[in-house]
Structure formats: structure tokens, C-alpha cells
């Protein structure tokens, strides 16, 4: 009996150690919320995008263009990160762009950096492509509106506890008149408690 127990332990122990030492991967839903560090994550980006999209498409700024029987053209401007974390704002700005474009109520134009690539290609076409297929320069569509935004944070911390408040504001500005026609806002607040000790 003692030998049986000893052999069982000898076999079980390496297995247990191995199980504790291997990397584990579990696939989860892309829209699931998993908070690990307390910092800005994909769930936050998704919450901001969802809030902005539903608000943007349900506000009266679109009526003007509906009455003109015209789809407004929007360009994505600068979304300023004024927070204390390095956040890739494209994770939610692209979601907003995709949702608005797919709604068929809004047309989007390429952003400033995207346009420079396109202009390079057109210049290349002007030199190298056939006249019939080369896309003409100076024939771009001007945007009606620009989507800009800011992401701000307020942090209150004491010891191992902190409260982090994120506020994302996005605005649509008419390029011709500089009028702001829509302002969207999403606030997220987190309480983060770090373990002071572990075994």
C-alpha cells in the first residue's frame, strides 16, 4: 500500500508540475469583457464605439441632409488622447466609421494619411498607367463634415486603490461653417485595486 501511494505520487507530481508550467490558451468571444490590469482595453473601445454610433445616427443633424436628399461626406480628423495611458484611438474610431458607412446614411472619405497614399498612387498612374485607366488628379470629393474627438482621464489614487475615469467626446463639425452639429460622449469609470502582497 505504501509503495502504491509512493508510485502514485511519483507519477502524479511531474504531471501536476507540468500542468502548472504550460501556457494555457482559451478562445473567447470577441465581445466578451475581460479586465486584467485595469487599463483601457478592447471592452472599453467597444463600449465607446457602440455608444457613439447609436447616438450619432439618431440625432437631428442628419435631417438636414435627408431633406437635401444627399448623403453627407465625413472625414475622420484627429482624436486627441489627453489621457495618462497610451491608447490606440483607432480601435473605436474605425468601429464608428464602419458602422456609419454601413448604415448607408453617411459617406466617408479617406483620412489625411490615407489620402497621401492615394495621391502617390495617382501620381504614379499619371506617369505610368494608360490614359483610359489612370484616375485623374484634382478630382477628389470634398468632405462636408469632420469627425474629431478627445479622450480624457481623471485618476484618483490612494495606496493600492485607484479610481480611473475615462471620458470620450466626439464631435461632428461642418467644414464650411465650423459649426458643431453633433457631440457624443461616453464615460467609463473603473475601480482598480492592486494586491499588495502575494504568497
Amino acid at each position, binding site marked *: 500500500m505504501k509503495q502504491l501511494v509512493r508510485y502514485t505520487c511519483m507519477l502524479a507530481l511531474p504531471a501536476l508540475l507540468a500542468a502548472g508550467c504550460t501556457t494555457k490558451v482559451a478562445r473567447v468571444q470577441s465581445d466578451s469583457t475581460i479586465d486584467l490590469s485595469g487599463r483601457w482595453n478592447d471592452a472599453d473601445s467597444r463600449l465607446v464605439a457602440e455608444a457613439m454610433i447609436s447616438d450619432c445616427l439618431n440625432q437631428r443633424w442628419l435631417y438636414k441632409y435627408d431633406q437635401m436628399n444627399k448623403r453627407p461626406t465625413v472625414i475622420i480628423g484627429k482624436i*486627441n*488622447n*489627453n*489621457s*495618462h*495611458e*497610451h491608447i490606440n484611438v483607432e480601435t473605436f474610431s474605425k468601429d464608428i466609421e464602419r458602422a456609419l458607412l454601413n448604415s448607408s446614411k453617411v459617406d466617408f472619405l479617406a483620412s489625411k494619411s490615407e489620402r497621401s497614399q492615394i495621391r502617390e498612387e495617382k501620381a504614379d498612374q499619371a506617369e505610368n498607367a494608360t490614359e483610359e485607366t489612370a484616375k485623374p488628379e484634382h478630382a477628389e470629393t470634398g468632405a462636408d463634415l469632420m469627425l474629431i474627438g478627445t479622450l480624457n*482621464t481623471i*485618476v484618483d*489614487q*490612494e495606496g*493600492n486603490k485607484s479610481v480611473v475615469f475615462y471620458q470620450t467626446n466626439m464631435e461632428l463639425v461642418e467644414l464650411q461653417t465650423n459649426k458643431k452639429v453633433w457631440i457624443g460622449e461616453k464615460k467609463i469609470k473603473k475601480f482598480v485595486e*492592486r*494586491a*499588495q*502582497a*502575494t*504568497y
Partner: protein
Amino acid sequence: MQRLELLSTALSQDDYRTAISSIQKNKKLYSATNRYLFYMDIGLLFHYAGIYDSSIAYLLKASDIYDALYTRSVSNEAASLLINDNIRPYRSHPFEVILLHQTAQLGYLAQGNIEDALVEARRTQLLLDTWSKKEAARKTSMGEGLFHCITSAAYSANNDEDDAAIAAYKAIKAYRQGPINLPPLVSECAYATLARNNRQSDIEELGLSALSERSSMRKDSGQSELIVIGYAGRGPVLRERVWWGTYVVDGMLILHHTEADGTMETMTMPAPPLTDDEKNNGRKTKSGTTLHIKVSVPEVQSYPAETKSFVIRSPSLTRPVQTEVADDIDVLANDALEQARTVTFARTVTRVVLRTIAAQKAKAEMQTASPLANLIFSLTTDIAADQLEHADTRICLALPKTIQIARISLRPGAHSFEIAAQGDQGILGAKTFADVNLLPGQKKFLLISSLR
């Protein structure tokens, strides 16, 4: 010392890529407890090499490790009380953490990415706020003057003039309360920023002098500016300093140290108390018991630097401009050790005393009939206890000796510059920056290093 040997030759030749390659091939020298140092050393080296993307990636990883180390392992801390502090994960000194974020900030600024540079500024400010609460009794700043100075310039470049003025105010305060002398250029820049924002009361409170006739700073905003940051000379390392003396339970601690020139230094302080269990168990640790102990604590070892300053020449300038020292890492390291001196001694002495008592008890309990066996066991116990005692001499090895700054107002347009590292014997090396295009109101950062 092995990490030092790995990097010494490459750093003395400003061959940063070779240094990076050496570290990456010898990762084991850093060990699991020194991951912070691994990422910070490489991050700094990439920074000196001008490869800012890689530098920032490594520095941010080091920052993540620092954040994760907030949680302390109870078992690890307990073990370090018996063995030595080198088994604890390296958490760095506050000035190293500030330098980490400052370096990342400068990397972003060199790339023209003001937004992320300001993110680093905000992150660092949160750390400074946390530390100021934890160390309310601290009489000096942690050497964050240059950080605030750079942050002020970054805010100004972003047209956040209020924040620029606040950062300028904090820069002067940090220098005045810290171990680094306030550079005249930083004083002038702060005056210009505060005056531009109509903060006369701040100017009076800080006692800043009005700009001189020859000052390169002007009060009006919107000026284009070149800001040169130079890293000069090798930063310090830490070595062990051995003290020996007498510990009197519930009494005094008297320690001696012999300098290289033979002079003896003596230090006396109240003996750190033992735990109640120790005091009540056995005869040897009752009040008044004396123990002869030997402790090792870290001390700063500085390197002489060939590079004394950087000189900027350009057809756009009427005369060459020389950098000023804005950060002295030797001074910061010495100040950090001095601030932690009492805690370090208390912790080290407590550890050595507990180990000495444990060793004596072990020897008493293991007495055999054989004198030879007793001798061998006693000697082995004493040698083992002695060998365990090592000071924590870890520090980032890629730090510079000084960080220097020059700020030059220029008209917008294309400029070219030659920045030369200058020593006592003349120019040590130069780098040309051609086609530096300054937009109206832009602040351009150029970084240069000469760690010789």
C-alpha cells in the same frame, strides 16, 4: 560585475548596437529577478542609437514590470531577510523610474509625437504624486527637475500654455528642492514661460530673474525652437561597502569602515530591534548581548567622463551654442542611497544579526563528540553565513553620467546642424543633422549621445 563587463567596451566606444546584441545573447546574466534592468538597459541603448520605436517598446515593457512589482511576494521578502536583497526582484530607485519615463518621453518627442510624449508626462506625474504621499518626510525631490522642464516644452509645443506654465513652475521647485543645481537655461525658460502666461506671482515666488539681454529665450509664444538633449559620459555603478562592528541588543549599533586611504569611518545608531520571539528565546539574545557583525551596503562608484558638453554649430547661428548640465546621475544615485541609508542599514543589520544568532544556535545544537567535526561544522556555518551577505548593487548600467540641454530660438525653415561632443582635449566626435525643417511655432527635439 558581469553585466558591467559585458557592456563596458561597447559603451566606451558608443557602439550601442553591439551592446544591445551582447545583452540579448547573454540574457541569463540578467536573471528572472532583473527583468526590469534587462528591458531598461536595452531601451536606453536603443534610445542612444536613435532607434526610438524599439527603445520605447522596451522602456514601456520595463514600466509594466515596475507596475507589476507593486505586489510583493511575502515568501520572497521573508527569504531576503534571511539571505540578502539580491533575491528580491529589482524595483529600481525612483530616479531610475523617472529617467525611464523621461527617456520614453524624449523618444516620442524626437519622433515628433507630442501626444504620446504628454501621455508619458501624465503617467510620470501620477507616480510622483504617489511617491510624494508615501515619502512625505522626504526633504528633497527625486531629481525630476529636467522631466518637468521637458514636459513644459512639450505642453508648449502642443499649445497647452497653462500646463506648460505649471510644469515650468514644478521644474524650478524640483531643482530648488533636489540635489541638482538649477541650470541657468532652465531658469530662463521657466521665466519666459511664466511671463508669457502672465504668472508674475509665480515668478516672484520662485525668485526668477528677468531675461538678460543675451538670453536666447523670448517671451512671445509661437517661436520655433530647437531643443538639443545630450547624454554625456558613463553613469555610475554600485559597489559593496563593508562595515563591521558591534550590535548590542536593545542598545547601540557601532559600525566601522576603512577607506582606501586607510582612514576609518565610524557610524553609531540605535540598534534595530529584534523580534519579540528572538528576545525571549535563549540566553544569547537577551538585552545587552553583543554580537560582532559584518554588513555590506551599496555605495556609488562614479566614472570619469571624457565628454564634458556638446557644442551646436550651424550656418543659422551667429555663434556656437553649448549645452548645460540639467541632470547629474552620479548626484541622483548618491542622493537616492543617502535617502535610503537608514532603512538599508536597519534591514541589513537585522538580517545579519538574525543570521548570526541562527548560526550560533545551529552550532550549539550540532555539537558532537568529535572536535574535528565540530570545527568543520562551525567553520562551514560561519563561512556560509559570511558568503550570504552581499549588498544589492544592482543599477541600470546604461545610464549616462549627465544629461545636458540646449534650447535655441530659430526662424522657421530648413536648417542644418553639427553637434559635437566636447572634452578637455577637444572634439571627441560630431554628428550632422541636415535638412532639419522647423515649422512656425514648432519645437524640434534632437538627441545625441557620447557615453565616453
